[in-house]
């Protein structure tokens, strides 16, 4: 067994959680909304998907349908959270930071209640196998990359394509940079903000679902999702607001994060329990370094959207 390949594939698989989370956050931020509710939204996305699985998991439906419905349930739960966030921050112009933090607390709490209601067996049998590609069956480490992993990569690339290669993306970026300008040329600012926030939240929600069902395949997995939500927000900065870069960033974060578990398995390496948290801190340290580097270089393209965090009031008309 090659421990290095194992380590790398595991980091890739683990990193997909962050691809979902930060791609979702980037879409929201590109509309000018700093969504600190992402951790809660990922929790709810996970809970929503798991509840659906719990309902239909033993109904004898074909496997792919169960997977599909579970994914849709997760997507819907995330979008519902996004709708709440949009209504508060876009329509009612509530403070984005406060709203986001409230949603995180709410989502993480509610998830704990909902997950207790589900049957732990659901997480172990069936779904885990259904998420695998058939060709991945040969080696154990490739086993770890399932449908939802490849979906994450596809979503990140598609998000980049939409943002930077389509009219809708151009308009959305204009909304996040300068809503007044967008408004003046007839772009429906509110609609774009709602759409970006809700789609972004739906994508982020999938991250929670993926982590519980695919990566960990265990009911207890929900306990760490909130922390990964925060990591996803940090990753947005690392990826310089480009969804496709979250794939690279997630892998780096995954490697850094997993190295605390793998380092003990490397022959000849001895670490104490106390060193583990320090290793887990590495992703955040890297984020700080990236922030420092991008701030020093100060390239306009690498900065957050100009109107990030600000509510838009159309001037008196």
């Amino acid at each position: 067994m090659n421990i290095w390949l194992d380590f790398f594939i595991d980091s890739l698989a683990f990193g997909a959680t962050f691809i979902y989370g930060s791609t979702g956050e980037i879409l929201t931020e590109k509309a000018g909304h700093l969504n600190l509710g992402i951790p809660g939204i990922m929790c709810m996305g996970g809970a929503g998907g798991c509840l659906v699985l719990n309902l239909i998991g033993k109904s004898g439906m074909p496997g792919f349908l169960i997977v599909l419905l579970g994914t849709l349930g997760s997507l819907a739960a995330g979008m519902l959270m996004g709708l709440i966030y949009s209504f508060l921050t876009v329509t009612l112009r509530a403070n984005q930071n406060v709203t986001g933090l409230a949603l995180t607390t709410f989502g993480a709490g509610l998830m704990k209640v909902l997950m207790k209601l589900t049957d732990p067996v659901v997480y172990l049998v069936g779904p885990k196998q259904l998420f695998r590609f058939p060709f991945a069956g040969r080696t154990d480490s490739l086993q770890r990359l399932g449908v939802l992993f490849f979906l994450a990569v596809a979503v990140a690339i598609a998000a980049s394509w939409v943002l930077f290669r389509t009219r809708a993306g151009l308009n959305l970026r204009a909304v996040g940079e300068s809503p007044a300008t967008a408004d003046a040329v007839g772009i429906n600012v509110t609609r774009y903000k709602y759409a970006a926030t809700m789609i972004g939240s739906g994508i982020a929600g999938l991250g929670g679902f993926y982590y519980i069902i695919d990566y960990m395949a265990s009911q207890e997995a929900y306990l760490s999702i909130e922390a990964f939500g925060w990591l996803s927000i940090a990753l947005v900065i690392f990826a310089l607001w480009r969804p496709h870069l979250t794939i690279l960033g997630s892998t780096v974060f995954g490697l850094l994060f997993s190295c605390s578990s793998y380092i003990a398995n490397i022959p000849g390496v001895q670490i104490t329990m106390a060193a583990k948290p320090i290793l887990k801190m590495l992703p955040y340290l890297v984020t700080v370094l990236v922030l420092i580097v991008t701030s020093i270089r100060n390239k306009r393209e690498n900065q957050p959207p100009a109107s990030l965090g600000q509510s838009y009031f159309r001037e008196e008309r």
Partner: protein
Amino acid sequence: MEKKLALQMRGITKRFGSVLANNHVDLDVYEGEILAILGENGCGKTTLMNMIAGIYYPDEGHIYMEGREVVIRSPKDAFDHRIGMIHQHFKLVDLFTAAQNIILGMEDQGRYNLKDVNARVREIAEKYGFRLDPEKKVYDMSVSEKQTVEIIKVLYRGADVLILDEPTAVLTPQEIDRLFAVLRKMKEDGKSIIIITHKLNEVLEVSDRVAILRRGEHIATVNTADTNEAELTEMMMGQKIDLNIRRSDPVNVQPRLIINGLNLYDSERVHVLKDVSFTAYAGEILGIAGIAGSGQRELLEAIAGLQPLESGEITFRNPKKDKPVTFFHKSLRRVEELDREHAFHDPQGKEISFKGMSRKDIRKWVDSGEVLFKEDEIIDLRNKNPLEIRELGIRLSFVPEDRLGMGLVGNMDITDNMMLRSYRKGPGGLLDRKKPRALAEEIIQSLQVSTPGTATPVRRLSGGNVQKVLVGREIAFAPKVLMAAYPVRGLDINSSYTIYHLLTRQKENGVAVIFVGEDLDVLLALSDRILVMNGGRVTGLVDARSATKEEIGLMMTRTESREGGEAHE
């Protein structure tokens, strides 16, 4: 040659609250002409045009295009009717290229292909003689290039009626020539061009017809070829109105603030103050007249220490002659320094020297109040920050144009807003709230601020009351120079007169008052002298008792500047 009507406005009226911005305006615009809309600040030029561009909706009146009535409720409606407006403040996304800005928000016309857009932009630019690289990012552009992007943005959407709001305000003379050449080409192409301006020479140079607005009313539309500068000025300014503002004759005037050769660039490297020189005297009101944005704001900010200067001097004469030295603001080291320059004498007029004395003795002597300044203190204000200016003992009170933006904090109550000027004075690290509250109560009393009490957030007060609080606070700190920019903007008549009276009283107390106003009648009635600014330059300094509105109006609007001596005193 018979010309075709492009657009007609009939009986257009627009009110903002109780203010009548446009009163039954009729206007015709023909195809293939350049129409200039001429008028003073706040005469309703921009408001009128905003109604064609879909920013505002008229309260009364109708707009016709090609004989049919049209309803324009949003900028999009205006685009649909082939009307485009280039606003004074550009609306562009800095991070995007020119081409991206140009197609922003347009409905799908085929695939999103920037190459095609770039080619089309180049084509339009070539046709009319613009210089623009469609792939350049807006943040790398000069003001003139940004304007070009805005114009092409409008042309790209197929506009036939183009409205340009003060298009030359931010351009250099060469850029203006280039713009005019482009405008003429567009005119030949059959487009209707409306330029809003107050610069007479430009009107005469580029337009075919001129429509003159005054106080929201349409005075006349004349053919440019049949008119001249003097006639236009007269129509623009109208007759002088007697306002009955009490004005006392200045007594004991002394130079207080000497400005010499001030040059200043703004953050976009536009030359906003050009060689400005003047002296403000204690005991008089110096009015500053000029079209909005002629550098008045920057001038006041430069004096208040809020703008870094390019070159020039700002000298303040602190009236210290025969006044005792105090330690209130000065350190002992400063006193010793001045002593080496033989700056002090005693009440009998004998020179004082501290040479060889111990610091303790010097302090004792100064504290006795018998050490007097021989001359006024001359202080260089250049590049000092507002706090340093105050620590030097200079009470420079500043009433910013933007009342709630820079002067007051909306969410804080009146007392707290008073403390913005006195927060450093409390014992130790604690705040003294008693004095500010007393001051707040005094201002509410003496200026008749209508408020439930001192604990009301300033944001809840009406505009007039906010202004009274701000002016009241600035005056309360016994200024030696009081600068007020548009202090009566948005105020009703009674509040305005309260403010005029306050300024006059300050002048009688020996304060040098600098008053930036927009209403020439008020400037003429209130000031002692009037400084006229035009495009960042001083274009005249007149005696307010003998000057006429037309004379000042010409100085405000004529662009060829009178260089050299005349602009100075």
